[in-house]
């Protein structure tokens, strides 16, 4: 489904990703954990073409978004990139809803502009998705009138409206208090049950252990561990993970 090989990325002199390789299969839920600054967000942003990589390759559904020729990253054409990025969905830490649109229009406008759906079709689908995230009654509201948890659930619905094949989350709950966090995690959990392919950067260890099929532990811009959640976070977990997670969270 998604294959990223030997990704390197620097900001100026600091190398943020050193030779990162990640494979995601269809229907898999992958949690990415790691200390602050380990490159988790950067990796996710590279996969969504919000950052350009220095070298390596990214294939989405077998199609190359970027490959490396003679040590230099070569991206696909702008048109191909747009098509590939549409297969990816992204939910940001700070929601990034469009404040001047109602909740409904946040979901409807991209469907119409990008996918060319009719108003009726787009609105019907939007209402279905709002029901799914438990916000049917907020369709006419503006984002500023919603709680953080509600805004994040709208953002998830908006991403789903574009029918992405892989949905990425960058710390979707780290701006929320525990109760709102639970609301949002419940939605993601439901999506996992539906076998959606997801990559979730998170600091919620319990959530990663319960919901993810696989856990990737990053440190210093490298993938240090990559395996089934029950191995990486289970009772057999490594010293590194023990130190990272802190025994208190178990």
């Amino acid at each position, binding site marked *: 489904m998604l294959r990223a090989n030997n990704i390197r990325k620097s900001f100026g002199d600091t190398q943020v990703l050193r030779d990162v390789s990640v494979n995601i299969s269809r229907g898999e839920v992958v949690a990415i954990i790691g200390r602050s600054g380990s490159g988790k967000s950067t990796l996710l942003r590279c996969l*969504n073409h919000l950052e350009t990589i220095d070298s390596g390759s990214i294939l989405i559904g077998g199609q190359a978004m970027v490959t490396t020729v003679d040590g230099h990253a070569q991206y696909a054409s702008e048109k191909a990139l747009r098509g590939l990025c549409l297969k990816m969905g*992204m939910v940001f830490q700070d929601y990034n809803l469009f*404040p*001047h649109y109602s909740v409904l229009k946040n979901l409807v406008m*991209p469907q119409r502009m990008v996918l060319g759906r009719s108003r009726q079709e787009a609105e019907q689908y939007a209402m279905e998705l709002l029901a799914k995230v438990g916000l049917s009654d907020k369709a006419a509201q*503006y984002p*500023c009138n919603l709680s953080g948890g509600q805004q994040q659930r709208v953002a998830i619905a908006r991403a789903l409206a*574009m029918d992405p094949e892989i949905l990425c989350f960058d710390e979707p709950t780290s701006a929320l208090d525990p109760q709102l966090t639970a609301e949002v995690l419940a939605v993601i959990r439901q999506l996992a049950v539906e076998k959606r392919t997801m990559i979730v950067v998170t600091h919620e260890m319990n959530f990663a252990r319960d919901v993810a099929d696989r856990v990737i532990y990053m440190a210093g811009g490298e993938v240090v561990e990559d395996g089934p959640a029950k191995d990486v976070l289970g009772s057999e977990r490594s010293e590194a993970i023990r130190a990272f997670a802190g025994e208190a969270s178990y």
Partner: protein
Amino acid sequence: MQYFNNPQALLRLITAMQDGFANTLIIFFATLVFSIPLGMVVALLRMNRRRIISAPISLYILVMRGTPLMLQIFAVYFAVPMLLGVNFDRLYATILAFSLNYAAYFAEIFRGGMLSIPVGQHEASQVLGLTRAQTFFHIVLPQVLKRVLLPVSNEVITLVKDTSLANVIAVSELFRAAKNEASRTASIEPLFVAGLFYLIMNGVVTLVFGYLNRKLSYYKE
């Protein structure tokens, strides 16, 4: 007192000044119509990553904001015909100078507005697959308009009063008409009547911006 205690004389004075007032309105509206879109284009060019585009635009903004508008009016009216060999109507020259000058101010206001839109809005748009043009017109621009309303209203109020500068190349606008009447009748009252006109115009401008502000407050950021 010749006018303020004599309604008939006042009416005659106003009639004598009405052509001047009409020209003032023409300069005002024409400048807005040209300078606001031009300002938006200048702002976008100023933000272009290529220095070969942004540097000359910076220079343009520096010159327009850094020299007196009065001088710019002279320059357009006298210097441009000398260089290009075409003669300008005084009113057109005024409108051209005003539009070029105000576009520079509006450009900086719009640029500030665009820079204040969180980068997340662009990233969300990109991730959803919107093109850059769609992002600009549907996501960025509407939010910028709300944010720049206050500084734009400041400029528009200044513009109302700046129209009087057109009298330096003998355009018969409101202030010049008032001055003529003042010297003809050896009274300063016509100047105060003109002042009242500017004040009323700005009262209307204030009302219009108040209305726009209410219209745009259907959401908060």
